[in-house]
């Protein structure tokens, strides 16, 4: 038994396994990179790099419509991780002249562990703030939620948000503070609103009275897609009926029931921060006489309890606070008002690349020092 475990270990630890896995990873890498031109980064990343297996090859014109099952990037990286681990456990010649490769492989292992933490435990989103505004939450880039907002309290709103399995056709939402039943009749990941050609049935309320939803193809730049939903409300009293919800819609869809006013909002999922950020000033500098940004930065206050701390966030200089990192990502100019867009990231694996890169480079440097002089040995004569 022990022998067979060692044999399996030897196979898993072999450079041959790395060789073939790396070739496959290279193929996925090329496919996923080319695909970005046609289907955008988000679709390409999910299909090729973040998948365990995939069957279709989106964004590769010659393979369009074909079903060709293949292992995805996550599978290939897991095999590489096992390969590296097994190499270090079973096949490491603990000799001085191999110190460099051992250290470098250890660094590679750490990098992949960091990748695992990032893939499974990181949250990314953004926060848009106009000058003078403050916020204690940030919005996910891609994930959606259906928020039922009770606006009846004077000083605050009660928000119940539904994500994941509730954002699909056929989902039913009831209980959890929702005063009735919400059934998702249709869901479109990208749609636009058009004026209805004919009068809507009587049970259509709000936006649905005068407009209709027109589904659209997915935009390669995923952030440009505007999700839409057709929901049926029951148990809400006189406001029961069919409603249209559109991601980022400015006109609120309001329902009055039992003396309370509720708003339905289809929006990017929001995450609560344990503190608030207030934008004091947004500064943009251009190269003189051009439309090329030279520098942009946000002067913010970090509000936590009664304390207020003034911080500057600029390109390449993020704010790190309680495992959250705020980056200067973009800006919006709306007439005289300026808004900053901060990317917000919570990443448990953030430090791994820093440590592993140092380890790998030390390892490779030692390896070069051991190997290079011998490989470059001088010839005796011209």
């Amino acid at each position: 038994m022990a022998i067979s475990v060692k044999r399996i270990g030897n196979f898993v630890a072999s450079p041959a396994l790395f060789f073939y896995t790396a070739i496959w990873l290279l193929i996925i890498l090329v496919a996923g990179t080319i695909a970005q031109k046609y289907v955008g980064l988000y679709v390409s990343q999910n299909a090729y790099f973040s998948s365990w297996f995939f069957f279709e090859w989106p964004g590769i014109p010659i393979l369009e419509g074909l079903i060709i099952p293949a292992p995805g990037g996550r599978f290939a990286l897991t095999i590489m991780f096992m390969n590296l681990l097994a190499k270090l456990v079973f096949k490491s010649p603990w000799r001085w002249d191999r110190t460099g490769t051992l250290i470098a492989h250890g660094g590679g292992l750490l990098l992949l562990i960091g990748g695992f933490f990032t893939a499974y435990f990181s949250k990314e989103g953004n926060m848009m703030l106009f000058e003078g505004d403050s916020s204690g939450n940030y919005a996910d880039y891609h994930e959606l939620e259906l928020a039922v907002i009770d606006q009846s309290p004077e000083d605050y709103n009660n928000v119940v948000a539904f994500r994941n399995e509730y954002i699909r056709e056929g989902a039913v939402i009831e209980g959890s503070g929702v005063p009735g039943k919400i059934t998702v009749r249709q869901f479109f990941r990208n749609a636009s609103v058009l004026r209805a050609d004919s009068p809507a049935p009587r049970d259509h309320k709000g936006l649905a009275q005068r407009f209709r939803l027109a589904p659209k193809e997915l935009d390669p730049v995923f952030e440009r897609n505007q999700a839409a939903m057709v929901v049926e409300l029951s148990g809400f009293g006189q406001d029961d009926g069919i409603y249209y919800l559109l991601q980022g819609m400015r006109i609120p869809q309001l329902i009055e029931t039992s003396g309370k006013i509720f708003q339905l909002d289809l929006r990017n999922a929001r995450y609560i921060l344990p503190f608030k950020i207030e934008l004091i000033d947004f500064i943009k500098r251009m190269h003189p006489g051009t439309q090329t940004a030279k520098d942009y930065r946000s002067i913010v206050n970090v509000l936590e309890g009664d304390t207020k701390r003034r911080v500057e966030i600029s390109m390449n200089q993020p704010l790190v606070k309680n495992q959250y990192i705020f980056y200067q990502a973009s800006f919006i100019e709306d007439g005289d008002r300026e808004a900053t867009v901060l990317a917000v990231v919570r990443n448990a694996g953030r430090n791994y690349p820093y440590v592993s890169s140092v380890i790998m480079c030390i390892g490779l440097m030692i390896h070069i020092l051991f190997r290079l002089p011998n490989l470059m040995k001088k010839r005796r004569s011209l």
Partner: protein
Amino acid sequence: MSLSAKRLLAVLTTFVLTACLHGQSSRDLSGLAEAFEPLIVQQDGRLKPFDTFARSNLLVFNQKSKLVDMSASEWLVELLLYPRESYRRPVFRERNVEVIQALGLEIDKKQDSSDRQYHHYSFLQLSEAFNNILEDIRAFASKPREELSATEVALITLYQKTLSYYALSRSFSGLVYDIEITNDQLASELGLEGRSSLNYVKVLELRNTIAEKIEAISSLSPEERQTPYPMAVLYLTTQLQDKIRDTSAVSLKIVPPEANQDTSEWMSPWDLLSGRPLSDWESERLEQIVSMTLAAKRGDASAVEDQISALRGEVTARVPVELELTYNKGNFFNRSVAFYIISCVSLWLSFAFLPKWLYRISLVSAVIGFLIHVVGILIRCLIMARPPIATLYESVIFVGGIVVLSGILVEVKRRDVLGLFLAGVGGTILHFVGFSYAADGDTMGMLVAVLNSNFWLATHVVTINIGYGAALIAGLFAHAYLIVRLVNRASKERIKEIFNVSYGLTIVAIFFTTLGTILGGIWGDQSWGRFWGWDPKENGALMIVLWLLIVLHGRLAGILKELSFTAGLALTPITVALAWFGVNLLQVGLHSYGFDDGVATNLFYFCGGELVFVAIFATAIYLKEKQQRPASSKSAA
């Protein structure tokens, strides 16, 4: 895409006016050009000497930074001071035959290799030709760019160049005294004692008086207007109408603002002639540029120098004008490539005769070329106050330096000719690739906000480019291995040594590409909040690392033998080229700088050529050695 119809008509009217009977000048402008060279101009957000401005503009029109018989500064001085003569000079270089045919121009036949005027056209030729197809141009301009054919895009581009050329030529038109007053009475009423011409600066001073004169003749009958005085007023009005069209000629920004001169937008002469009230500072600058222009028209270079010195004021201390002029005149990369070529030629000749001397000449030439190359890069760093690489052009030039340095180091260590040869060949090829990028204009562009970080430019960008260079030289040694093994199989020891060098350089390349890729990830983490985003540029860098790791581990696993390892390594330049230039063709991702459509064809030929080369040589070696094996076994038996 839209072009103003009014502007088109206005410019074309002037084209006709300029089609006068002036011949091309034989005027010596070298002294004046030299005087103008240190004048500071703001262009694309950067303060630069007039000479650089002239070179980058000439590159746009001519794809070269000098004309056959005059420097860029001389050309621009002529264009500014004597535009009618410059309009006849064949400055526009257009090699697209379909464009030339669409314009109805004659395709000039190349007479011999010294015929350097091949496919060159003057502004007058082009403007007359465009006049004939103006409706077509307007139709193209109203269409979305993606609906246009390549020829239509090229036609619009050339048309826009002619507009820019014209606008540039009118930069000083408000300063020169070319508004003629043809009547003594009118001259006297305008207070022009002993002078029969005005400039637009003077017109602005006299605008109320001139308006009164125009108003006065407007009430005259047609017969009364035919007398000399009203005719002179009418002629003045016509000239002013033409002059007012020049107010958009604002590309030559030479007037510094009073405050924040480094960070604020500078003004062109026409910016001071809009009729708005000028501050004391602006009035003083206006006087200086008028004096400068008049002195230039008189040919007084010394007075021009004085006025430029006064105009530059305190900015001079903060803008390294002299250094940039030295860089421009030094032609460092032209000189370094010349030495690399000498190095290669000497090395070839050394196989035929004087082996020791010619070898030494080759080595010394490569070292001198490299030193000039390094000085050129260092001066660019000093001028821009940033690390050596921020643009694709700088990247190519830097990687060329790395390839040459690696080759020289290998040569110094081993003295077996190969390192020296590959240094010369690699350096030369990359220089010419770089020159193609230099043809786009000023190579010292300002950076977008995210790239504006000297720390990351000095770490990630430099490291990944050293990695590119190391991977390329490893690939070149692999090419050499394949050639030597095919043509000279007898020297097994030598072949093994070349293999070892390739293997060693592969490890060095893995070190730098891995470090560079990870540093890039860390920069991404610092800038965008994620270490790895699967962006095409990031994937390109990872592609090189993976390819190198594949060939290395294939060898370690025994899957790749010496020949197949080297064949794989010889394909490394393909991965480098795809990562370097290829991913830009996708035109997606956050690294939205350095995009270049024209590179696709060259990249395709390069990759195809490499694949064919490796396939032919590897197969030939395999077949040759397979045939020889039984024979040698028999003889041994």
